[in-house]
């Protein structure tokens, strides 16, 4: 992080300053930031490097997935193909747990859909920045979106850096580590043991705590966050899978829509 920040500001402060001054005079800071969204190699590089420590944690899950997939009867090639094309950790791990002979195709695909519906919400949250990019760039970046790099990208774009290529850079880091770790896990089997031994299973939770600190905007944030928390905890206890993420987010947004009218 620090080495990126070290050379980053010199690159991105310049265009942002000129546009903020000339355009909307700071009335709508979000619009000013969105107007200055760029898409360049520097942004990809910054995203990739920022995501490396997180991608290492993702690698821990990837090894676990590779081993689970082998145990479920997938070949190394099939496990690798799944990681390279699906790129959704929780859904893949659940899918190989459902795997049986014959393959319950409809169950596997529908469960994958249900677990991953939250990505629609997450992609929509990136909308204000991504809509300034061409369709091939925005949609191409979104396909590489996962929980971890969405979190880092949200943080980056909310800071106003305008690095639209950040999602692609972080996504590439996640993809490389996820696929490589799957191959290692599937090929090496039980040699590595439990990723929890190195605390790597905690990386995802840690990323989200750090992000919550960044996203906290004081009192106005309190009510929607409490609604999200209560909805998610209750839903997680009642429903299987990852519905709680989707429902928690939607409940908070709904409450905010109602509150906004008053």
């Amino acid at each position: 992080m620090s080495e990126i920040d070290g050379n980053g500001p010199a690159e991105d402060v310049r265009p942002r300053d000129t546009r903020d001054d000339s355009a909307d005079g700071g009335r709508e800071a979000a619009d000013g930031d969105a107007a200055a969204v760029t898409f360049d190699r520097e942004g990809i590089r910054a995203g990739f490097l920022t995501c490396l420590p997180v991608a290492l944690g993702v690698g821990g899950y990837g090894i676990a997935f590779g081993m689970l997939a082998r145990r479920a009867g997938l070949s190394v090639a099939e496990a690798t193909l799944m990681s390279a094309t699906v790129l959704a950790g929780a859904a893949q791990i659940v899918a190989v747990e459902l795997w049986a002979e014959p393959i319950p195709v409809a169950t596997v695909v529908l469960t994958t859909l249900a677990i991953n519906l939250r990505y629609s919400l997450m992609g929509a949250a990136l909308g204000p920045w991504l809509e300034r990019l061409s369709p091939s760039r925005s949609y191409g970046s979104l396909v590489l979106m996962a929980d971890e790099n969405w979190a880092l990208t949200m943080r980056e774009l909310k800071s106003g850096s305008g690095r639209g290529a950040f999602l692609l850079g972080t996504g590439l880091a996640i993809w490389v580590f996820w696929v490589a770790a799957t191959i290692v896990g599937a090929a090496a089997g039980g040699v590595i043991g439990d990723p929890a031994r190195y605390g790597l299973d905690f990386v995802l939770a840690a990323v989200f705590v750090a992000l919550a600190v960044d996203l906290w905007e004081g009192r106005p944030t309190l009510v929607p966050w409490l609604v999200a928390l209560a909805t998610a905890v209750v839903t997680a206890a009642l429903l299987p899978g990852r519905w709680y993420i989707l429902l928690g987010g939607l409940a908070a947004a709904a409450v905010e829509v109602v509150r906004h009218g008053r």
Partner: protein
Amino acid sequence: MVADGALALEPLVVGTILAMALVTALTKVGGFWLLRRLEVSDRLEAGLSVLPGAIVIAILGPELAAGGPAEWGAAGVVLLVMWRTENILLALCGGVGAVVVFRALV
């Protein structure tokens, strides 16, 4: 070293994997696609603006609830380091180090 069948690609398995990849890609681009085509009112925008934080909390809540004192303590370390330094790498390293130590203690 490569076991028999490690490179096997069964058509039905490959088909299932590609179907999973397709629905996943649709979920990833779908929300953004829909949003670009809707006329977004002020109220809807206010609702969408709380989404990032709300989703983070919704992911975090049950995850921490399922953990124990070691995870809660480590989450506290991340919170504190992040709040004080605003350095995500430092916060992550602190949290992962703390969880290993706390799990050994608890």
